[in-house]
């Protein structure tokens, strides 16, 4: 049984060593923009390539996330509590707005 315990300890140590790395990966994979009071928060978000940005609508009114130039960014209507994710693979600056309240604007900077 001793070798089993050693293996478990080894795995635990390995896990502890990997933990910071995993956390970094988790952060890079998921950046959140909330929608409150007809505003994207934060209005500008900077992420690394490969990041999935998730928009969460916390208003009682639906919103639609639409890329200004990149038309592949387009959410379905987001009702209260709904979210939409888009993975930004390449570096660049991506302006977007709400397709039904176009004064709502935001930017994703990927670098």
């Amino acid at each position, binding site marked *: 049984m001793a070798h089993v315990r050693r293996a478990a300890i080894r795995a635990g140590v390995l896990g502890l060593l990997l933990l910071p790395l995993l956390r970094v990966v988790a952060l890079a994979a998921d950046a959140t923009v909330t929608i409150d009071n*007809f505003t994207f928060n934060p209005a500008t978000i900077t992420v690394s390539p490969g990041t999935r940005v998730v928009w969460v609508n916390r208003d009682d*009114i639906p919103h639609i996330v639409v890329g200004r130039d990149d038309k592949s960014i387009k959410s379905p209507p987001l009702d209260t509590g709904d979210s939409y994710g888009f993975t930004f693979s390449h570096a660049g600056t991506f302006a977007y707005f709400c*397709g*039904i309240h176009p*004064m709502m*604007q935001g930017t994703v900077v990927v670098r």
Partner: protein
Amino acid sequence: MADATNIPSRRKVLECMTWAGAAAVWTVAGGVPRSSLIGVGTAQAAEATGELTFMQISDSHIGFHAAPNMDTPGTLKEAVALVRQQRGDSALMIHTGDVSHLSADSQFDTAWQLVGESGLQTHYVPGEHDVLIDDGKAFFARFTPGAPRGWYSFDERGVHFVGLNNVQNLKAGGLGNLGADQLAWLKDDLAGRSASQPIVVFAHVPLWTVAPQWGWGTDDGAQAIDLLKRFGSVTVLNGHIHQIMQKVEGTVAFHTARSTAFPQPVPGTAPSPGPMKDVPADKLRSMLGIDKVMYVPGKQPLAIVDTPLGA
């Protein structure tokens, strides 16, 4: 409200209307739509010949289910009952958009059945909540048959009605939008018409700029107004902002209707144009309502009566 020797200016009438409170009856008389208090002006108007009265409802938002209104079908039903009570000999009704909250078929069904109980032929224009799915195809098929892009016109007792769609192809940072195609159609539609023909324009988002920071206006609305300026009587009826606002510019009178679902704040009084959530239950119906519009040929001016669902 007016007689031959003492005709109040339209501005004066509109000022009066500000205090009139909640269903609007529109009467178009002598080329000038007029509004009057239900129970006061209506009886007078009914005696005139060639008059036209019609009703307006707006912003039903069937599918909205949150504070301050957990029962939007219920308040629409109340609004339609009020229409039945107030309509008199109304020729028709207009619905200025946001029939649904999320463009769902079931929401369209509910609204269609409830509005149908008004007994009035109803002419719709889309709100942005009605075109969320598939570019609004389901809305247009049901509510604007024969007008697949949501704009159209018709005549009723000498009055020319124009329904416009300013809720699609919106541009980043912009307001409501008519677009070049629709403006070209409008120019063509109005060409050759006598300047003495009364015009009623109805669209969801206000055609004039009410509050740009909240998107309450139409980017190219001024181009539409320019096409209408040569007419002696133009009435522009909108919804979208869930409260009554009005102004007069030359021969053009603008008026927005209350919602039948929930009130929105006065610009500058809240962080966003979202629903006013903290309205006490016993006050909600004072902030919802319908409109009656009256036009009486040969008499000044057009009258709009806003009537709330409750005190």
